C-alpha cells in the first residue's frame, strides 16, 4: 500500500515537473519576444509576404534610456516664491511648470520633455529633462523668461504722412543720390573702367560691390527690369540711369548665352480609378482607360486636339484650358511625361504615355531657348516713405500688463453657464482698465501672452470695477489652463537655474555601448565559471541565468524603467546576485552527495537547506534598494529600481526556474549520480 502511494506520487510529480518546464519555456519565449521583437517581426513580415495572412506586428518599442545614455539636458530650477502669498504658491509653481512645458514643446520642439515640480523643504523646484537637446543654451534662454502678459488695444492711427521736414530730408537725400548716379554715369561714359566705377560709386554692400558689380547671369525672374533692358542691348553697352522706386542703376551687359530649353505643350489625360488625383466621378478601370485612349489616339489630330480634350480629358479644368500646359522647363514634369515631350518632334502628338496620373496624349507645340544675360551694375539706393515711417501694427500696448493683474480664475456665466476666465486687477490696473474700456467700447482688446494673442474679447461697456471676464468658446480645461497662465503671468515667479547637466549624444551612445559590452562579458565570465566549477548543475544554472536576464529586461521594458548608466551597473551587479543563490544550492548539493544521499532527495534537501541563506541575502539587498528608492533623487532611484527588480526576479529564477530545470534533467540520471556532479565520489561500500 505504502509502496503504491510512493509510486503514484513520483508519477504525479513527473507530470507536474513537465507542466512547469513547459511554463518555463513559454516564459522564456515571451520574454525574448518582448526584449527583441525585431527578429520576430522580421519573421512575421516574411510570413505575411509569403502567405498574405496579415498577422499584426509586435510592438517594437525600445528601452527607456536615461539622459546619460541617449544624450540631452537635465535642468533644475528654483522657483522664487518669497513674494507670493502662501495659498497661491502651489498653483503659481504649477503655472510655471505648464509655461515651461509649453515653451520646450512648442519653442524647442522637444517631443517628450519631462517637466516636474518637486518640493525640497520649503523650496519649490522645477526639474526639466530634455532628451536629445543639443543647444542647451537656447533652451535655457527660452525657459528662463518670465511669462509676459500684456493688454493691447486696436491701433486706430492711420499710417501717418511724412512731416514736411522729413519729406525735405528724404528729397534732399534722393536728389543727392541722383547727382551721384549722374557723376558715375559721366565717369563711365568718359572712359572709366566699369569695375573701377563700381568700386568707387556703387552702394551695393554685398559681394556685388567687390567683384566689379557682376550679378552673374540673370533671368526674367531674378531681375525683370534689367532683363528687359538687356534683351535689346548689345554686349558691352552701358545703360542710362534706370530708376525704380528703390534704386538708381547703371548697368553694363557683359555677356549673353542660351538658357535652358523650354517646351510648350498641351495634353489630354485619361485617368482611371486609383490613379493619383483622379476625380471620383471617373469610372474607367486601368484597362478601360488604355483601350479608350488608344481609340482617341486614332481620331485625334493637331486640328481637333482642343475639341477632343474638351470632350474626353478627365483633367479638372481642361474644358477651359484646352489641356494647355504653357511653357515649362526640365524638372517641372514627372519623368515619363518629360521624356516623351522632350523626345517628340514639334507639331506632333505622342502617346499614350503612362504616369501616376493616368494616360496622356501630348501635343508638343514648340520649344524655345530663352537667352540669359550677364549684367554688371552700379547701384544707388533711394529712400521712400516706408523707410522713415515704421509700418503700423494692428495692436498697440495699453500700459496694462500682468503686473497689474491681481488674480485670474475660472468662472462660469450665471445665465448661460458658459465657461469664462475672470480677472481681478489691482488699484493701478483698475484705473488703467477703466480708461482702456472707456476708450474702446464696441471694439476689441487683445490679451497677449509671451507676444502671442491668446484672447481677443470685445468691450461691451466701460468697466470700472477692476474685474473683467474673458469669454470665448472655452472648454473647462482650456479656461483652467488660461487662468493658470494668466496667474503665472500675473504673479511672475522668476526661476533661477540651480544646476544643469548636459550629455552629448555621442558620449551617451559610447557609454551605452561600453556598458553593454561589459555586461555581456560579465555574463559570459560568470557562466563559464559556473560550468567549469559545478559541471552539469552549472550548465543548468546558465539556463536559469539567461532566463533571469531576459525576464528582468522584459520587466524593465513593460514597466518602462528608465535605464541609466548606474542602472545598468546595478543590473550587471545583480547578475552576480542571481548566481549566488545557485552557488548556495550547489554547495549544499555537493555536501549531500558527499554524504552519499541519492541524487533526487539530495537535490530537494539542498534547496530546502539553502533557502534561509538565500532569503536573508536577498532581503538585505532589497532593504538597501528600498531605502535608496525612498531617499534618492533621479539617478539614484534608477539604480535602486534596477537593483531591487533584479534581486526580486533572481529570487524567483534561482529557486523556481533552477529547481524546475534541475528536477526535469536530474530525473534522467541514476540515483547514485556520476562525475557530472560536483561532490560525487565513488560509493565504496
Amino acid at each position, binding site marked *: 500500500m505504502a509502496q503504491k502511494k510512493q509510486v503514484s506520487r513520483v508519477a504525479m510529480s513527473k507530470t507536474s515537473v513537465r507542466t512547469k518546464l513547459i511554463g518555463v519555456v513559454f516564459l522564456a519565449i515571451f520574454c525574448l519576444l518582448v526584449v527583441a521583437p525585431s527578429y520576430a517581426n522580421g519573421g512575421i513580415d516574411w510570413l505575411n509576404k509569403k502567405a498574405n495572412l496579415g498577422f499584426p506586428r509586435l510592438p517594437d518599442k525600445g528601452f527607456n534610456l536615461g539622459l546619460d545614455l541617449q544624450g540631452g539636458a537635465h535642468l*533644475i530650477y528654483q522657483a522664487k516664491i518669497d513674494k507670493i502669498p502662501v495659498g497661491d504658491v502651489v498653483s503659481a509653481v504649477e503655472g510655471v511648470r505648464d509655461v515651461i512645458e509649453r515653451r520646450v514643446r512648442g519653442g524647442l520642439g522637444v517631443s517628450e520633455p519631462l517637466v516636474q515640480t518637486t518640493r525640497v523643504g520649503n523650496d519649490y523646484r522645477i526639474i526639466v529633462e530634455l532628451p536629445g537637446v543639443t543647444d542647451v543654451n537656447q533652451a535655457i534662454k527660452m525657459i528662463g523668461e518670465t511669462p509676459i502678459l500684456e493688454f493691447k488695444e486696436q491701433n486706430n492711427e492711420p499710417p501717418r504722412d511724412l512731416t514736411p521736414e522729413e519729406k525735405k530730408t528724404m528729397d534732399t537725400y534722393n536728389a543727392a543720390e541722383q547727382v551721384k548716379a549722374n557723376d558715375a554715369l559721366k565717369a563711365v561714359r568718359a572712359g572709366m573702367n566699369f569695375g573701377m566705377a563700381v568700386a568707387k560709386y556703387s552702394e551695393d554692400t554685398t559681394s556685388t560691390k567687390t567683384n566689379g558689380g557682376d550679378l552673374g547671369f540673370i533671368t526674367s525672374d531674378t531681375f525683370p527690369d534689367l532683363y528687359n533692358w538687356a534683351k535689346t542691348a548689345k554686349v558691352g553697352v552701358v545703360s542710362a540711369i534706370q530708376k525704380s522706386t528703390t534704386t538708381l542703376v547703371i548697368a553694363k551687359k557683359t555677356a549673353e548665352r542660351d538658357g535652358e530649353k523650354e517646351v510648350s505643350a498641351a495634353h489630354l489625360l485619361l485617368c482611371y480609378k486609383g490613379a493619383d488625383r483622379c476625380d471620383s466621378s471617373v469610372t474607367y478601370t486601368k484597362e478601360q482607360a488604355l483601350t479608350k485612349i488608344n481609340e482617341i489616339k486614332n481620331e485625334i489630330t493637331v486640328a481637333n486636339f482642343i475639341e477632343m480634350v474638351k470632350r474626353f480629358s478627365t483633367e479638372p479644368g481642361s474644358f477651359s484650358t484646352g489641356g494647355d500646359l504653357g511653357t515649362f522647363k526640365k524638372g517641372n514634369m514627372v519623368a515619363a511625361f518629360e521624356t516623351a515631350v522632350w523626345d517628340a518632334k514639334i507639331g506632333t502628338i505622342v502617346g499614350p504615355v503612362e504616369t501616376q496620373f493616368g494616360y496622356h496624349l501630348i501635343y508638343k507645340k514648340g520649344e524655345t531657348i530663352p537667352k540669359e544675360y550677364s549684367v554688371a551694375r552700379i547701384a544707388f539706393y533711394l529712400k521712400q516713405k516706408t523707410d522713415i515711417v515704421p509700418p503700423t501694427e494692428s495692436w498697440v500696448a495699453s500700459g496694462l500688463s500682468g503686473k497689474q493683474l491681481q488674480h485670474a480664475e475660472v468662472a462660469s456665466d450665471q445665465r448661460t453657464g458658459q465657461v469664462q476666465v475672470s480677472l481681478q486687477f489691482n488699484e493701478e490696473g483698475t484705473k488703467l482698465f477703466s480708461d482702456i474700456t472707456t476708450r474702446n467700447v464696441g471694439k476689441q482688446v487683445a490679451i497677449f501672452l509671451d507676444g502671442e494673442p491668446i484672447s481677443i474679447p470685445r468691450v461691451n461697456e466701460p468697466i470700472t470695477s477692476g474685474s473683467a471676464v474673458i469669454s470665448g468658446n472655452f472648454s473647462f480645461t482650456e479656461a483652467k489652463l488660461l487662468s493658470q497662465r494668466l496667474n503665472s503671468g500675473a504673479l511672475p515667479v522668476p526661476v533661477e537655474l*540651480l*544646476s544643469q547637466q548636459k550629455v552629448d549624444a555621442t558620449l551617451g551612445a559610447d557609454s551605452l555601448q561600453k556598458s553593454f559590452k561589459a555586461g555581456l562579458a560579465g555574463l559570459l565570465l560568470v557562466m563559464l565559471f559556473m560550468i567549469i566549477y559545478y559541471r552539469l548543475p552549472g550548465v543548468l544554472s546558465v539556463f536559469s541565468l539567461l532566463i533571469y536576464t531576459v525576464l528582468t529586461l522584459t520587466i524593465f521594458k513593460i514597466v518602462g524603467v528608465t535605464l541609466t548608466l*548606474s542602472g545598468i551597473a546595478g543590473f550587471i551587479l545583480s547578475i552576480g546576485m542571481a548566481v549566488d543563490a545557485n*552557488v548556495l544550492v550547489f554547495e549544499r548539493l*555537493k555536501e549531500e552527495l558527499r554524504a552519499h544521499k541519492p541524487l533526487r532527495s539530495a537535490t530537494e534537501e539542498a534547496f530546502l537547506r539553502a533557502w534561509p541563506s538565500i532569503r536573508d541575502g536577498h532581503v538585505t*539587498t532589497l532593504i538597501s534598494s528600498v531605502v535608496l528608492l525612498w*531617499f534618492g533623487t533621479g539617478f*539614484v532611484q534608477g*539604480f535602486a529600481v534596477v537593483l531591487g527588480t533584479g534581486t526580486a526576479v533572481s529570487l524567483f529564477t534561482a529557486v523556481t526556474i533552477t529547481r524546475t530545470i534541475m528536477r526535469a534533467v536530474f530525473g534522467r540520471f541514476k540515483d547514485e549520480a556520476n562525475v557530472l556532479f560536483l561532490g560525487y565520489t565513488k560509493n565504496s561500500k
Partner: protein
Amino acid sequence: MNIPFIKYSKVWYAVSILTSMVALYALFSWGIKLGIDFTGGSLVELSFAKNRPTVEQMDNTLKELKLDVNVIQKSGDDEFIIRTKFLDEDIHQALIKKIRASYEKDGNTVTEKSLQTIGSSVSQQLRQRAVSAIIWVNIAIILYVAYAFRKVSRPIASWKFGTLAIVALAHDILLVMGVFAFLGHFFGVEVETDFVLALLTVLGFSVTDTIVVYDRIRENLIHHSASEFGTMVNVALNETLMRSINTTLTVLLPLAALFFLGGSTIHNFALALLIGMASGAYSSIFIASPLLVTVEKWQRRERK
C-alpha cells in the same frame, strides 16, 4: 579539508586592525575628495578633434577669463576635464566661446561632451540625502539581522550577531573609504553620488556574506549543540568557504568586466564595488566569525 580559521583569530584581528588604522589615518589626514555633486560647482568635459592643447596652454586660456578654476585635467586621448566653481549659463557660454576661439584653428574642432553644474542648494540636498540614506540602510539592516537571528539565544544573544555583522560591515566601508581617500590625495580622484551608491550596495552584500556564514553556524548550533563553540564555528566556516569564494568570484567577475570595459564614467563606481565586495567576503570569514568565538569566550569568563 579543515582550515583552522579560529585558531589564528589574533592574526586576522591584527591584519584588520592594521588596515583599518591605515584607512582611518588616510581618512582623517587627507579626507575623501568630494566631487561637485557634494560641493557644488561645474564640470566641463571637452574633446578636441585634432590637437589637444597642453594643460599649461589651457590653464593660460582660462586665466584670461578670470574664472575660479579648481582642476584642469587630461582624460582619454583627446579630452579635457575642467572643474570650476559654479558657472552660470552666461559664464559657461563665455568659457566655451573662449576655448573655441583659442583652439578651433587648422581644422581642429572642440566638442562639449558633457557639462554638469550643480548649485550649492542642490549639492547640499544631495549631501543630506546621502547621509540619511546611509543611516537608514544601516538601521534597517541591523533590525533585519536581529530579526533573522531572533530564535538563536544560546550561547550568544541574537542582537550580538547583528552587532558583529555591523562591525564586519564597518570594516569593509572603512577600507573602501580609506582607499578613496588615498586615491583622492595622490591621484585627485573625487567621489560623486555614485560612490554613496557603491557604499550602500557594499553594505547589503557584505551583510549578506556574513549572514550566510552565521546561518550555517545557527544551523549547526541546533544540530550539534554538544561540541565546543569555537570548533563548531570553524566547521561552519569551512563548510561555507567554497560558497563564499565562489559567490565573491561571481560578483567580482562582472564587476571586473565593468571596471575594464565600462568606460571612464563608471570606473570609480566599479572600483569602489570591487574593493567593497572583496573586503566583504574577507570580513565575514576573518572578522565576523572569529569575533563570535571571542565574544563567547568573554561571556564565559564573566560568568566564571
